């Protein structure tokens, strides 16, 4: 579940500890933009300590490492892998080269940390024009890749256009990224909404992202978690339909059928997958109990 992915600056201990209680799905401890050059070492140490000692519960622990073109990236990967990061966010990803560089160091880091090979994932932050054009290549470059994420601010700068609240300038990038990511069976995470005080603006933006096929949204402020969750909360009718789909498919399976008719329409495995995603969102939104959802998924 990657609905809400919250950045926490890696150089601020009082904010890092808030990660234990903030209601997000993914915590992204930032070593890149939020940390000045002279604080990189200290922040890396701080994040490593936080990963080792603090209990972040079920939240996925992701570290945004520094640009693969800098000497920091290798140190970041080695240290935070050992400390227990679930995944690394690779900034400024452009095609398979960036992914393979990161994956190669990660192989080494996992070996040093006695971790099973491939246990740490990669989330690719795509934030350049070339990165967008090579999104599918990057997404399919390694089995470690778990998700694609869009960095709209840097992309707008690369495109030479202004970043606007309506985000029309990102339309192509958003749809292209969703297509590339979904084609590889990955989650796709939308760019953050940058006005920390505008919760309703964030809700509108997240709702639009969901309508395009994104599975979640990056957040730069805890104030955006509630509107993001609200945007990704399925409607009652969507949940009812999803439950019917799962139930119908269960019956079809029992009867040895591959497809079945529901409400006059044929449903098959892709529809089941979509229904299961809906039920997962409904559970995360508190609309269904965990046990009910689990039993549905278990069928």
């Amino acid at each position, binding site marked *: 579940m990657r609905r809400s992915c919250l950045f926490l600056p890696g150089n601020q201990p*009082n904010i890092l*500890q*808030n990660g234990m209680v903030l209601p997000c799905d993914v915590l992204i401890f930032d070593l890149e933009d939020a940390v000045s050059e002279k604080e990189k070492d200290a922040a890396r140490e701080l994040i490593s300590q936080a990963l080792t000692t603090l209990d972040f519960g079920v939240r996925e622990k992701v570290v945004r490492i520094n640009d693969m073109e800098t000497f920091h990236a290798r140190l970041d990967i080695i240290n935070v892998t050992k400390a227990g990061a679930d995944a690394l966010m690779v900034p400024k990803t452009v095609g398979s080269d960036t992914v393979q560089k990161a994956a190669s160091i990660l192989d080494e880091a996992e070996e040093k940390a006695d971790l099973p090979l491939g246990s740490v994932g990669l989330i690719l932050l795509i934030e350049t024009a070339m990165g967008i054009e090579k999104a599918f290549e990057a997404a399919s470059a390694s089995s470690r890749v778990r998700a694609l994420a869009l960095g709209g601010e840097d992309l707008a700068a690369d495109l030479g256009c202004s970043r606007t609240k309506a985000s029309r300038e990102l339309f192509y990038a958003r749809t292209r990224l969703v297509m590339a990511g979904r084609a590889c069976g990955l989650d796709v995470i939308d760019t953050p909404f940058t006005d920390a005080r505008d919760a309703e603006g964030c809700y509108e933006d997240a709702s639009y992202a969901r309508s395009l096929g994104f599975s979640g949204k990056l957040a730069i402020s*805890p104030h955006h978690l509630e509107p993001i969750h609200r945007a990704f909360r399925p409607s009652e009718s969507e949940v009812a339909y999803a439950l019917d789909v799962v139930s119908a498919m269960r019956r079809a399976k029992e009867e040895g059928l591959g497809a079945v008719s529901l409400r006059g329409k044929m449903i098959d495995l892709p529809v089941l997958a979509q229904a299961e995603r809906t039920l997962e969102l409904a559970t995360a939104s508190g609309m269904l109990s965990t046990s009910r959802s689990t039993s549905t998924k278990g069928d």
Partner: protein
Amino acid sequence: MKLSRRTGKVMPSLKDAIRSSCLKDGMTISFHHHLRAGDYVLNDVLHTCTELGFSNLTVNASSIMACHTPLVEAIRAGVVTGIECNFMHASVGHAISQGLLANDVLFRTHGGRPAALESGTAHIDVAFIAASASDPEGNCNGKEGPSAFGSIGYAMSDAVHADYVIVITDHLMPYPLTDVSIPENLVDAVVVCDSIGDPDRIMSGTTRITRDPIGLLIADYTARAIEACGLLEDDFSFQTGAGGTSLAAAAYIGERMRKLGVTGSFASGGITGLLVDLLNEGVFKSLADVQCFDREAAASIRKNPHHVEISASRYASPQAKSTIVDRLDAVILGATEIGTDFSVNVHTDSNGMIMGGSGGHSDTAAGASLAIIAAPLVRARLPLIVDRPQTVSTPGKTIDLLVTQYGMAYNPKRRDLHDCLTGAGLPVFSIEELKEKAERLTGKPRLLKNEGRIVARVIGRDGDELDVIRAVHK
């Protein structure tokens, strides 16, 4: 022949009024703090007393605020040698903690102060009452005039019990003032000055809803806990402090009451614009106001008959036949430290320096059916929960529930809360478990032992000494 009319009690100057009061060295003078950080009156009176050569005075003020730092100079000059108050801002408190004052400060509560005056335990020789409007005979209030601050509730007991009462105003109105908070029969003299204070500074800066996500999380848990305990039904009554988290909790409670279609009976205490909004929306039927925390509240109390001014005695005096605090369903309070026995410190900081006081903390905790401490588990790398707080301001037996961002702990004497809270899916721990969580983040702080002389005594609302505060030498 035209008969001469009585001209009233207006004195030519503050000096004349003080002279007429027969104030002598060693006596006690009193003040209220309704103008909060904007008060000019306490400083003006001390300045005049210094000019008149007084010494060895005791200041009995409902609170000592940040603007009262000239008090430190008056202590150094020997003009003031004793202080009795319910709250002391760090700007004066730190000087006291370093042993500046010859005698011990007596800390009471907002209810304990009028009770002490009623019983004669405390005595006021001359009360100086800042009023934003007064007529020449001393009928006065805090609601009218350019320096309007709203309720004058803390001064009412002073007016009743002081030997001599001087009203100081910057807005003299024709006799008779119609909206009277303190009546002329209690007033001996009236002084007109240029300004009694800056009403814009009534608002202390802690009266805005927090935007801190952790504060909002604590507020959300607090509101959910109150609902889980079944209190959010018609005629619900509650009080909250002026801190950002408490105000956020009040806002969340208002939201839940709207959703449930519940109409509350009253909200009390220091009143903010947020509570005024809830009154105007009909979420609460009335406000019981002993002090206004902002200009919105001060404006409301002037025009809305359901926004009721109350005295400190009616608010919380344990000597009174009944009080507002005893009718409270829930109160949301803050804490600097809380002990594992739920006793709370709101007087001293982590170094043992004076930076606050009970105010109405102990009174509302004792009176309310559900007394909640809502505070972050870790603040500036210090854990909230300790074995024993540096200073016991409010006894643990009066606190029912602690709410933090990591979860909540009920006082073991309130086991009845367990099922309500867990049934609502709220994260419930023992206070020891929460303490352990905090110490995993911060380490266990070294116990601070202040062994200096006693500089202050904390008097519980029942008049007994709860604790002492010792000098801290840098």
